[in-house]
Structures are given as C-alpha cells and as structure tokens.
C-alpha cells in the first residue's frame, strides 16, 4: 500500500523533472539544420509530445504499470529492448558480487568482533577500509594495470571478446570467455563493499559481546564458536537491512565501474540516455531503479518480522 504510493510519487517526480528540462531532443536537430521546424512538429506529434501535459502524464503512468515503456527517441527501438539486457548485465555482475561479499565479510566481521584487539581484527579493518575509501574506479584501474596490462592474464575491456557473438542468455553468460572478462570487475566490487559489511558485523558483535545472555550461553558450556554463532544470529538485523538496501541500489549499477571496465550495464545505458535526452529510456530506467529500492525496502521489513520475534508481521 505505502510502497505503491511511494512508487507513484517517485515516477511523478521523474516525469516532472524531465519535462522541466529546457530543450528537447529535436531542437538540436533544428539548430544543426537537418530538420525543418514543420518536420519537427510532425515528429513530436508522432511521439505524442504535443498533447497537453496531463494527457502525457496519464498515458505515462498507465504505460508504466503495464510495463510498457514506449519507443526510444534516439534509437527507434522499444525501450525494453535497450534497458532489459543492460539491466541483466549489471545484475549478473553485481548481485553475485554483493552476495559473496555480504557472506564472507560479515562472517569475517563477526570473527573480528569476537576476537577484539587481535591482529585479524586490526588488519581486516585497515584493509577493507582502504578498499572502501578508494573510489571503485581507482581500484578497477589498479586491477587492470596489474592483471591485464602488467601480467596479461585477463582481458581489459567489455564483457566478451570482440570476435565472439553469442546468442541468448545462456550462451552469453556461461562461457570461459565471459568468465575471464568477469573476474576483474567482480573482484573490484567485492573488495569495495567488503568494508561496509565487515564493520557492521564487527560492531554489532562487539555490542553483543558483553551481554548477559551470551554469558549465560557460556555458563551453559557452549564452545567459543557456538557462542559466536549466537552472537552472530543476534547481529543479523542490521546486516540484513543493509544488504536489502544495497541490493535495491544495485539496479542503478555502479556507473564508474561500468565505465572503467566498459561493461554494458544499466548505469552506462542511463548516462547515454540522459546525454541524448531520450525521455522514454531515462524514465524507464529511473522507474526500475525506484521500484527496486522500494521493493527491497519492503523485503527488509518482511525479513525483520522473520528474524526478530519481537517484531510482528502486522507491524510492517
């Protein structure tokens, strides 16, 4: 209910913002002399841009909720055809990376928090903080310099070799060629996000460590690892929240990362579309991003109810 309302507000803002932009994609063509003003009028009518603004708005909303994003203004293809493959590319890269880093870094963080003051804690914090503080494209460039240009082990650009021309998703993503292109951006992402999860997990375990119930668990004769397990279970809430929110933002891609590795993802597609003033594509991309954030927020709330017995599903 609230989620639906939020989505509506978000898309309305997008719609309004784009209409407020001073120029439209066709004015540039007039200025360059390729089209006469009369021809431009004709094209605008074809795209429905000469209708009153509220008609455009309702048509836009109606289309969104039927997942009908219209035709790209610059590429003359349905927007879905441009956006969906880009989105899939981004998700294939970022989702596994996020899951991997969430699991490994959280476990490491819990272990670090449990052994407070150990060399493991100190060094893990320093290392992950360095990667978190370094912009992801810098890490990316370093990886490229070392493994592509220096050692020459892995390719530097794109998602596949320029010669390959796979058809369909399976052929695209399940191949050695893809894997080679995949490793570096994947590693950069894992390293980048590891700091967040590590610190979150460490801090919440440190917070739990002095608590009475862990003392009772210890008094019951549980081993160190079993105690850490209970501390970890009690620290899950902030981690799950953060994971859900991060996942929501994944749909925006990591633009600089995609640029550095020339990864054909949604971030790059969005930047392209904005530069070309391709309204339908921008609207569709932003809509998907907003929807993802809202949906993942809802997922986080539902996960709360599952994880924390004091929160009842009705409270969400």
């Amino acid at each position, binding site marked *: 209910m609230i989620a639906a309302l939020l989505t509506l507000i978000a898309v309305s803002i997008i719609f309004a913002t784009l209409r407020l932009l001073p120029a439209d994609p066709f004015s540039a063509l007039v200025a360059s002399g390729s089209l006469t003003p009369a021809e431009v009028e004709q094209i605008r009518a074809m795209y429905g841009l000469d209708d009153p603004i509220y008609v455009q708005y309702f048509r836009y909303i109606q289309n969104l909720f039927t997942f009908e994003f219209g035709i790209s203004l610059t590429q003359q293809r349905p927007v879905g055809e441009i956006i969906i493959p880009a989105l899939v590319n981004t998700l294939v890269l970022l989702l596994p990376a996020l899951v991997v880093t969430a699991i490994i870094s959280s476990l490491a963080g819990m272990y670090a928090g449990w052994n407070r003051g150990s060399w493991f804690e100190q060094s893990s914090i320093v290392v992950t903080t360095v990667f978190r503080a370094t912009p992801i494209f810098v890490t990316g460039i370093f990886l490229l310099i070392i493994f592509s240009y220096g050692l020459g082990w892995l390719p530097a650009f794109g998602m596949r070799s320029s010669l390959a021309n796979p058809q369909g998703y399976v052929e695209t993503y399940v191949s050695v060629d893809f894997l080679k292109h995949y490793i570096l951006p994947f590693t950069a992402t894992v390293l980048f996000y590891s700091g967040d999860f590590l610190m979150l997990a460490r801090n919440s375990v440190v917070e739990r460590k002095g608590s*009475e*119930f862990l003392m*009772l668990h210890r008094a019951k004769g549980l081993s160190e690892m079993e105690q850490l397990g209970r501390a970890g279970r*009690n620290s899950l809430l902030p981690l799950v929240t953060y994971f859900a929110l991060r996942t929501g933002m994944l749909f925006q891609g990591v633009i600089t990362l995609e640029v550095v590795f020339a990864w054909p993802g949604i971030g790059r597609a969005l930047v392209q579309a904005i530069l070309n003033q391709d309204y339908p594509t921008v609207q569709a991309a932003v809509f998907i991003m907003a929807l993802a954030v809202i949906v993942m927020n809802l997922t986080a709330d539902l996960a709360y109810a599952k994880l924390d017995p004091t929160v009842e599903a009705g409270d969400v």
Partner: protein
Amino acid sequence: MSLLEVNDVKIAYRMPGNDVHAVNDVSFSIDEGDNYGLVGESGCGKSTLAKSVLGLLDDNGEVREGSIEFDGRELLDLSEREWQSVRWEDIAYIPQSAMDSLDPVMTVGAQIRQAIRKHRDVSKAAANERVAEVFEMVGLDPDRTGDYPHQFSGGMRQRVTIAMALALDPDLLIADEPTTGLDVIVQDKIMDKLIEIQEETGSSLLMITHDVGVVAETCDEMSVLYGGKVMEQGATDRIFRSPTNPYTIGLKNAFPEVDEFDEQAISIPGSLPDLTEEPTGCVFRNRCPFATEECEDGHPPLTEAGGQLSACYHTDRSDELREKAADPETWGIDVRDERDRSGGVGDTILETRGLEKWFKQPQGILEDLRGEEPDYVKAVNGVDLSVREGEIVGVAGESGCGKSTLAEVIAALQERTGGEILIEGTPVDELLGESTKEFRSQVQFIFQDPFDSLNPRQRVRAAVGEPLKIQGHDPETIERRVRETIEDVGLKPAGKYLDQLPTQLSGGERQRVAIAQALVLEPKLLICDEPASMLDVSLKANILNILREKADERDIGVVYISHDLASLTQIADRLAVMYLGRIAEIGDTTDVITAPKHPYTASLLSASPKTDPDVDRQRVLLPGEPPNPVNLPEGCNFAPRCPKADETCRGEEPTRSTFVDDDHEAACYHPVKDVESELLERYAAAREEEVGEVVAEELTL
C-alpha cells in the same frame, strides 16, 4: 569433604594504569546439600567470586592466587574444553537480570534444550520431554516452551532461567541476585520455588545477594564481604543474632524492616575503599567509627568470635560495639528530633481528584476506519490523593501498577487524560497557562537513576545552579544558594564538590546532587520516583534521612513513590498502596502497616523478607500475576487473585471509602482481620491443591 572449597583466592582485574584487586584472600566452603550466602554491597567482589567458580571472569580478570576445588578437583587448572563440560553439568548458574539473560531470538524451550543436548547425547524429543518437566517444576505452563523471552513477564523469565539451571540436575547452583529487580510478591514466590526444588534435588546452593533479608531466610551459612575481603563468616542465624564485626552490625542496622516505624535508619557514612592496591589495613577502617591505630596494620585475620569468624581487632568488645552502633551519633549522624514531626503538617499543597491517565493501545488502520473504540491501558484510573505541607505521602505498589505514571502526571511531565490536579487550590492548567516557569519552580522531580539523570559533562556547580539560571537569578545569588543547598544535602564542605563531574562522585553523592538540584528552587512540592532504589543499603538510609529532614525543615510536601515498603514505612507519614491504576488502601503509615485492611496490602507486607532469623515467616504464595491491564476484570481488580473474593467483589468495583476508619480507607468489601489465617494459609492451601491435582493427573495417566 566439602563440595566446593574456595581457598585464599585473590582476583584482580587488569585496568589501564592500575589493577583492581576485587577479591583478596577469600576462603569458604560449601557442603553437599547446603545453602551458602555471600552478602555484600555492590563492589564487594561477590559477583566476581561467583564468576570465578564458573570460569566466567571477563577477559581482563584473573585469579592470581589460591585454589577453587570442586568435588576434589582443582577448577583453576582446567582447560577451556574441560571447563565446558563442568559448566551446567556440575555447576549451573542463575543470572542476575532475567530480563537480559535470555537470548531474545531463540525460543525459551530451545535455549534449555541447547543446554541439555550440549552435555547429553539425547534425541530432540527426549530433550523436549525434560524441558517440559523442568518447566512444570518451576510452575510454568509446559505448553509455552515454544514462546520467545519477550512474551514472558520478568518473574516468569526468572523462572525460565531457574528451569534452565535445573535441566541437568547440577550438584551446585549459583544464584547471582536471582530476585533483584523483581517485586516483593514475585520475589517471595521465586525464592520459595527455588528452595523447594533445591531441597528436592539435594543440590547445593550458593546465593549471592545484597539483600540481607533474603539470606537470613534461605541460607544456613554465610560470609559477609566488603572491599574484596571476608568480614564475617559463620552460621547465618548466629551472625544476624549477634554480629561481631562493625560492618555487619552497620549493614544490619541500615537494612530497613517494614515494621520499624519512625526509627531513623542508620546509614554507614563514607564510600567504598579504593581497591587499586592490595589493602594495607582493615578495608573498613575509613568508615568504621570504632577504628583505632591498630586497624592500620593490615587487614585483621578471621578469628573465632562467639561461634563465628570475624575479621576485626575488636571482637572482644563486640557486645559493647553492638550497643553503641545502635546510636546514630556513633556513626556521625545527627539525630533527628522526632517531636518536630507531629506539628509540622500544614495546608494542603497538592490535591488530585479522579486523576486519570489512559494510554491508547495501537490498533490497525482498518479498525480505526471502522470507528472501533481502541483499547486503553488504564495506568492511572481515578486517583484521589492529597499532600499537605511538611508531609511525606508514600505511594507503594508493584511494577506496572501505575505509580511512576502517577508521579509524572502530577508533575505535568505527562498529559493527564482526565480528572483534576490542584496545587494550593489552583488547577494545574491555570498555573501552566500563567507561567510554566513558575509552576516548575514549585514542583520538582527526583528521578530513580542518579547515573542517568545527571548530565555527565556538567559540573556539580552548573548542574545545581541551572534551575536558578533558568529562573533568571543573578550569578551571586546563584553561587550562594548553590553552596547552601549542597551543604544542606550533606555534601560538606561544598567547595570540595562544586567542581566535580558526576563520574567523580559515588552513587549516593550523585543522588544527593540530584536532590540538591530539586531543592535549590525551594519548591513546595517534591515528587520522588524511587530515589533510593539504585543505591546500596548503607546509602539508601542516608537519602531517606535527608528527604525526611528537608520535608520537616522547609515544610515541603513530598510524594515518595517506591516499591520498597520498608523504606516507605521509615519516612512516609501517610501511605497509599496502588494496584492496577487504583489506590487500594490509604491511611496513616502506622495504621496501614500494622492493620492492613485490603488483602493486597496485607500480602505485600507479608512478602517482605525479615532479617531476624528467629521469625518464622510464612511465605506469600499469591496465586497468578496481575491481570492484563488492557482487559481488566469486572468488579474489584484484585478479585481474581483474592481468596476472600465473592460474587459482590466480582460484580461491582468497591470504592475507596468502602472501609473507613478515620483517615484509613480501603477499597474492599471484606477487610482483612487476620492475615495469617485469612490469606497466607489459604494461598498455601490453594497451592497444595494445585500440586495435588497435578499429581493426581499424573497418577491417572
């Protein structure tokens, strides 16, 4: 051979800078099946000792010397792995705060099952059977093993921890303040259950507590600890009948008893010794009125004195010391002139009429739309209370009875939902409308926790001066009045305290600063919400004395909220007992205490433990828990738990004037005449019956 033998144990905590020597050369032993008590105030090392027996000391704590032998086996040499098998299997632990001791994201049944399956190779089903068994033993519904801790009340959670401790039939149970934070009636039921079960299973019990009464009633032998040292050791009844150590004497005198009226509680002045070095003299010498030069030469060894062991150089004079210690002047306390009190009561300052504070229960949007009437928690439900000048009115009741809400509503810290509050005959809204500042200067509040209620970054001078500053006084007046007030609450000389931060003060000193903060504006009405409940016994008495004195001197009206009846009887002129938002009984403190009319008051009074080992008190086994405040029963709120209740009680709610005798009023159709036969025996009988039914059920199965 004894089950547990602790020999000359020294425990220290490593701290940045200095080590803290928490326990020094403590020895004691517990025989099989015995109950042993470790008594002392906070910081005396009793919890540290208990933890060392389980190998649960914090990372920076270590046993430096001595030995702890359990069943002939040296525990200090155990590896972590060996410890894990001793814990719970041989020695189980009942933690202090049941509220935080259970894992919040695990069902209580699973937590107990975990303990069982860690040590025994049994199937899940067999473990579950045992869980149900121990649940029944502690009087919990075995169907509730699948519930989470937050679904239980405080008393029930404590039962869960006891059930957990019993799961493996340990040889030794360590109970670390098992009833702190619980109400007296609940405490009484829990202690009764604990002792009963322990006798049945034949395990030994190590009871750690600051509550002298609890030890006096449950333990055969005990040690009194102070500053990490044993002060006195021996049979409990001997120690309480004729204590030989000045500290024990002081502790016993400071411990308030419900039926000691108007007797000035005797506090022990001073504060705990600094433990950053091993003690060079008697640890108690800086607070002991009988200290001589001899006491500087090392802590006295435990010597035989009248059947028990006492660490004092003056045990030969113990009779004389006891006599002298009963006189407050010995401890440097000014004797209050009791005659002042009678004539001191003046005009009415505060009057409430039908005061109500109802909290709306949250309900779904749909119910709201349908216009359904939401449920209310009636925290304060039609309370009439009046306070006169120079009078202390005590409000007693268990947690959740609405007494704290009442205090906050009177002080206008919370909006009321109904009724009237009159301050000197003027409605409170009028006063607030005229000037909130003026109202706030007349009505002051003292909070429960002196550790939270003072701003940690504000020095004493600023903290006490702030109210004056808000009222717009000039700096000179502020400085003068701050000094006066600080000395007035016993922080002398004022200069020593003015520039200190709260962290540099002890708990008792902090609460005195809080009192000074409230008194500095010379209010007419002072509302105290459990001001002494966080403090140790010896300091508690001191705070009570200050409040009593100020009320007499300055003709302030005081509302004193507390669950501790013993301290209420010492300072309150009149006493109101609350149950579920209503005043069940009100009257002169002496009348209410000596002749309680409402069955609830009578039960509450009988549940307070006594330090006198000769008194054989019948425990109060009040059945059930207070009903859900959302769905209060028809008629008298107490009827479902009252053995005297009949149809009238269940049908119509009694008004407060149902029983009247002068000022003494009680909301009861059947005022109590004899507590023993009318209530306590019936409670016990009702329980026997219940137990009998369970047995009969089992037999038929």
